[in-house]
């Protein structure tokens, strides 16, 4: 069973990429493990499809002690199924440096069935330059990848693209780099190009202590759509990522904020308002949420701990 690991920062395009891969490989026997950082797994809902075996792992990174035991359980369970491919979408701050050692550790139980085909790292062209200096997991994701998609190419200029290409080459000279928008690539060609990276195995930088704070935001009833957008823009500067669903007076919507881009799109699967916000300002995000909720939405959005 070939494992294909998808890594990349929050909002870089992993879920979009994985959705495309699942469509492309729909006639193959495919399993998916979706790792979402928040307590609710937004990505899993977006990826649900008939015929795909899915496992959801929430509330931490699969490479961190937080939920590594559950990740291992999922791998063992998938190994027992008749699958050709296992796609794993890691959470945005995951450091996959210990992936091989995890597979080696369970080889006895899985009979060595699970083979890491390689990892595809989705680099967010808008934010990688800045955030890779601050978040150690990002360069690690690049180092461990065999294919790197420099995504959101349409949103950056040539000079920025050249700088990022230079950084990627310096971190991982062997990787195959493709510039994309919306992760539109020849998927089969990408998967074929996968090989094990030459990077050294190491301990993951994901630890309990390095977890950023996440908040679950919820609301009952309908929200005014314009006010909801103002609310998200108001708290966005204090977050790395906001994603989820909301019920508005104009119907259900899906919300995705990453980098400096906010997308609010119609959604038929939005049943209640529930969002995950990953803080870049520690506990201060809580105060920002309550203030903005009071000011813009009559306090309807609450923090659910």
């Amino acid at each position, binding site marked *: 069973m070939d494992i294909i690991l998808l890594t990349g920062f929050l909002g870089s395009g992993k879920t979009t990429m994985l959705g495309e891969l699942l469509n492309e490989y729909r006639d193959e026997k495919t399993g998916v493990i979706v790792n979402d950082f928040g307590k609710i797994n937004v990505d899993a809902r977006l990826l649900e499809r008939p015929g795909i075996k899915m496992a959801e792992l929430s509330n931490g990174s699969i490479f961190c002690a*937080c939920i590594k035991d559950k990740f291992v359980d999922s791998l063992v369970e998938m190994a027992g199924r008749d699958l050709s491919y296992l796609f794993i979408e890691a959470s945005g701050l995951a450091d996959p440096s210990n992936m091989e050692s995890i597979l080696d550790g369970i080889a006895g139980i899985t009979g060595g069935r699970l083979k890491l085909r390689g990892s595809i790292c989705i680099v967010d062209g808008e934010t990688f330059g800045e955030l890779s200096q601050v978040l150690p997991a990002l360069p690690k994701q690049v180092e461990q990848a065999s294919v790197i998609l420099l995504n959101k190419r349409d949103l950056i200029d040539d000079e920025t693209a050249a700088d990022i290409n230079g950084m990627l080459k310096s971190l991982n000279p062997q990787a195959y780099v493709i510039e994309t928008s919306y992760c539109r690539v020849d998927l089969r060609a990408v998967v074929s190009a996968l090989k094990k990276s030459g990077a050294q195995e190491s301990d993951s930088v994901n630890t*309990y*202590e390095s*977890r950023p*704070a996440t908040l679950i935001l919820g609301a009952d009833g309908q929200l005014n759509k314009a006010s909801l957008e103002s609310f998200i823009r108001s708290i966005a500067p204090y977050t790395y990522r906001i994603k989820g669903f909301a019920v508005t007076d104009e119907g259900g919507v899906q919300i995705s904020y990453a980098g400096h881009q906010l997308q609010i799109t119609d959604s038929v699967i939005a049943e209640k308002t529930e969002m995950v916000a990953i803080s870049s300002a*520690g*506990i*201060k995000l*809580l*105060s920002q949420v*309550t*203030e903005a*909720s*009071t000011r813009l939405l009559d*306090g309807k959005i*609450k*923090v659910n*701990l």
Partner: protein
Amino acid sequence: MGKELIFKTLRHEMTEETPWVPFAGVHAGKLTGYTAEEMLTDEDKLVESLLEVNKIYTPDGMPIIFDLQVEAEILGCELMWAKDNPPSVKSHPCAGEKSIPCSCKIPTEESGRLPMILSAMKRVKKEIGDDVALYGLICGPFTLASHLRGTDIFMDMIADQEYVKQLMNYCAQVSVEMARMYIDAGMDVIAVVDPLVSQVSPKHIELLLSDAFKAVFDYCRSRDVFSSFFVCGNATKQIEVMCKMGPDGISIDENVNMPEAKKTTDSYNVTIGGNIPLTTTMLYGNQNDNMKAVVDLIDSLDAVSKGNYIISPGCDMPYATPVDNTISVVHAVKHTDSARKMIENYETVVDTSDVEIPDYANADKVIVELFLLDPDQCAACTYMLAAVEDVYDKISDVAEYRVYKYCVKEDIPRFVKMGLKNLPTICINGEQRFISIIPSSDELVETIRSYAK
């Protein structure tokens, strides 16, 4: 009804009577014959004691448990238990090499003594919760950070502010979770109790601590629950920054001039609570002393402005507080005019004739005198004593130290003769050098050595 009186006051509305909240923590155990440790660890004894507080002291609001070590215990601090005091922290898991505790240790409903506490809260809510506002007291994030880090945290505030921010961020998450659980258990007011805030300059509070506190008060507000900020020690300079953090009320002890502080809290539309002196008045005074203290306090507060205050003891009542003293307090709060007539022309006198002040100029060594409230119960006092003990090896060649406690009756005249206005205070050769501020170890050693011959 008492509960509505508290709610109206915390909404800053005018009320017909003065609200009264006794901070009967371990003292509740005295009413039922249980030790402090018994009533802080046994649900039935705790509930029995609290219902007795309600029966005898007829509060408008009351805390369920006054123990700032609940969270610290869960996070790995060892506690030292006492018969007539809340426990004290005796080990600090983040002392020495800097670390932040694991997120997995953030308390849940199953952690430490919380199952007992939450169950007691629900039982008391069911019995008296319609009539009395119930206060859930949580350890403030800065005091919690100091439980984890020990006295090192004061040096960190100068040498590694980024670490302090991270530790405060963690402790704020703990405080918010505690608030959530207590609110879910039915508490009407969440009191964030942080004695050590009085030790920090307003500038450093705003730089390093405010975000953490604000998050807790904002969370309470988002849950439509009142909040209060309890502080001990001379917090006069800190009142304004505390108001800015957004609590509905602030509660202070006898170190702060309450009418003066009310001018600030009124300007921020924050309710002020306090501040009957715990030791001289409630513990060692007589009934007339207690009535006079309350009448004088109410009159001085009304002279500033009517309403927007709650009468309480300055802090957690001493275990052995005579019941009749507290009953006199209740009478003075609820029947102020009657009490005023009863204590006309009564004055309190302290005899200082037996106090011998040392001959500092001719002593062999520098004399460092610590004047504390109660190092077992008052967090600021604990850390001030620790600050001197920790540097003793570096100064023992030139100095000695002595400890006096305001909770010891025989020591009180010395406090009066030394002219002390605020506690805790470190005097060096008779000069008041560190008043309600815990010095860093370097500063303390340097100051003591400057007095050496």
